């Protein structure tokens, strides 16, 4: 992940800023600039998601890529945000506690680092709602 590609989507990564099609009301996260339903008739605006959602499916990853900030088993999940869209993220919890249907909310964490001298990639992961 190069510096420019990371930087370009900082509001999306840090603050869950996605988009919404005002024409049909559909929300998008990750953001889309082109509504698949309305296409050229869709009026797209930014939308900041509240950060609450439900786990739809998950897996406990045992072997992870080298640059990730948390070596060791972690929970990868597809989360359905309350506003509608589904997104992929990590859930910070004891892997034994992960389950389909658990309620989660966003948290600010390190996602990865570009080695010892490269930049730090911050972003959003999720924690269980107590």
């Amino acid at each position: 992940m190069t510096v420019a590609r990371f930087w370009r989507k900082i509001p999306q990564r840090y603050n869950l800023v996605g988009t919404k099609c005002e024409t049909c009301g559909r929300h998008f996260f990750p953001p889309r600039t082109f509504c698949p339903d309305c296409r050229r008739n869709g009026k797209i605006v930014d939308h900041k998601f509240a950060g609450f959602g439900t786990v739809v499916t998950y897996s406990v990853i045992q072997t992870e890529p080298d640059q990730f900030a948390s070596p060791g088993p972690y929970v990868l999940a597809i989360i359905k945000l309350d506003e509608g869209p589904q997104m992929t993220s990590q859930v910070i919890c004891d892997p034994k506690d992960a389950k389909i249907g658990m309620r989660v909310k966003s948290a600010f964490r390190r996602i990865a680092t570009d080695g010892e001298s490269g930049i730090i990639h911050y972003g959003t992961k999720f924690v269980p709602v107590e």
Partner: protein
Amino acid sequence: MVGIITYGVYIPRYRIKVEEIARVWGANAAEISGGLGVFEKSVPDMDEDAATIAVEAARNALLRRKVDPKEIGAVYVGSESHPYAVKPTACTVGEAIGATPEMTAADYEFACKAGTAAIQTCMGLVKSGMIRYGLAIGSDVSQGAPGDALEYTAAAGGAAYVIGNDDPIATINRTASFTTDTPDFWRREGQNYPRHGGRFTGEPGYFKHVKGASTLLLSQLKKTAKDYTYAVFHQPNAKFPQKVAKDLGFKPEQIKPGLVVPRLGNTYSGASPVGLAATLDIAKPGDTIFVCSFGSGAGSDAFDITVTDAINDKIDRAAAPSVEKLLQNPIYLDYARYAKHKGKLVMQV
């Protein structure tokens, strides 16, 4: 009247007990806990650092009170463990709370008092009318060298304060500082761990400066310890704040709510800010709070604070976790996992 508009705290969930660290080094845990008054300390998760802690503390502050982030005109983050030597934590925080781009920002370092220095700066900017709100944060994932005394107490955590004029929940009536060039504890550029002067950190360091700033402020205000409901002193361990409080005339009940170090450890730049937050968590309108931080190098910032009705009327303290709540349900680590979390294991790069 300038004061605290809202506040928030973040403490990571992991802990390690003093007895576990002592086990590794063959030390006497009971003696150490007895001497320091500390039993366990917080440890950051593998994907947490001073920036993520600062962001969570700031976001918690904003959960308690509706403050338009675009009205925050300044962000200052104090830490000894900024993730970058060059590239401010304050910029990441500003972005993560939606305050950018029309704001000023910078990072502070002044050992454990960088957070209170940030509060003073925000006070000045607000009082002068330069900004409407300022965000001051003290956040650390402090490092202690393996086997060193500091390893038992160097902890992770932070607190964020929004400073402003509009209906503060607590007015900061006056602040006074006492600063000298004293090498009691330091870390040279590029070094992994700090060094310290052992017992030299006591009288010439902590006590001289905390007493210096405290007596200065009290004499300026013509007040004594009895005039305050609560007091919060920098807490590198439990013994120092208890002793300085007594020496200054404060009673144990006054410092009790703000004395979190036995269960948290020393969160360095977060220490006094978190102690103040623990006090605000239980404070009532009309309560008065005396705060004095200490940062090695060395200096102390003292504050005279009065809690207002707004603490009940204008903010919802229950909207974000209290210090007490954040101290509950910890996850304990053994030393090996602690070392992994703290980056003490040399990994293949």
